[in-house]
């Protein structure tokens, strides 16, 4: 896999899947409305070649006032997306996002794949959003969080799928990772044993 990786920017080209195209369409709306976001978790492993599918794309979006959220909601509707949880923007904002819950958006009439959006509710979430990494994919931009954090966090999630994603990202990026940062985050999340088994062990 060819890519340029320099700290907070990854530049690469590939043939886009339907999922990639959908994601680029969705994040363009966020960019147009100047909503800060990071895509995290499974899609990032898929973006960088992991051979699996996903039903959802997870994002943290900046915590914002209802008026800004409403503009975002209206633009999503205009661009052919709808919320799967509720058809009411106020309810999505008050009963889900403000209550630390996710709201899901999919193309109208579709259920999957969907975009699972959350406000950052922990310092870890906030750090992810603030320390984002820009991915330039075929000339188009999307944001993700530091690979070191994502790998460590995947280890803490603990399912086979998460371990495989962690190992995949580690294998792809290991020559470019800040190993001190990765080891520190592994230690902070208390997942040293998982790292030993999933990352450091050769086979």
């Amino acid at each position, binding site marked *: 896999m060819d890519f340029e990786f320099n700290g907070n920017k990854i530049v690469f080209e590939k043939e886009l899947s339907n999922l990639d195209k959908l994601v680029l369409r969705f994040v363009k709306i966020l960019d147009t409305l100047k909503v800060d976001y990071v895509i995290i978790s499974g899609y990032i492993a898929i973006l960088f070649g992991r051979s699996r599918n996903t039903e959802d794309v997870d994002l943290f979006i900046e915590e914002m006032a209802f008026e800004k959220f409403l503009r975002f909601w209206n633009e999503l509707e205009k661009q052919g997306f709808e919320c799967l949880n509720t058809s009411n923007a106020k309810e999505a904002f008050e009963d889900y996002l403000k209550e630390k*819950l996710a709201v899901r958006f999919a193309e109208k009439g579709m259920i999957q794949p969907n975009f699972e959006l959350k406000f950052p509710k922990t310092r870890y979430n906030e750090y992810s959003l603030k320390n984002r990494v820009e991915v330039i994919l075929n000339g188009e931009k999307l944001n993700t969080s530091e690979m070191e954090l994502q790998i460590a966090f995947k280890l*803490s999630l603990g399912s086979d799928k998460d371990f495989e994603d962690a190992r995949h990202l580690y294998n792809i990026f290991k020559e470019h990772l800040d190993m001190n*940062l990765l080891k520190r985050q592994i230690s902070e999340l208390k997942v040293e044993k998982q790292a030993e088994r999933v990352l450091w062990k050769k086979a």
Partner: protein
Amino acid sequence: MEKGLKLTKKDLRELKEEKKRNRQQRMEFVNMYADWLKKTPNKVWSKQQAKYLK
């Protein structure tokens, strides 16, 4: 400035709670999706699935 986060007990507790919330929401979604599948013709749901599964 050093990168990364020093996590406190409170941070770890919040992350644990977040994972629990996420798991619960995902299970609710799995139920919702199954309900939708059961009332949707095969032609419709399989077309959606095929579009994103290569």
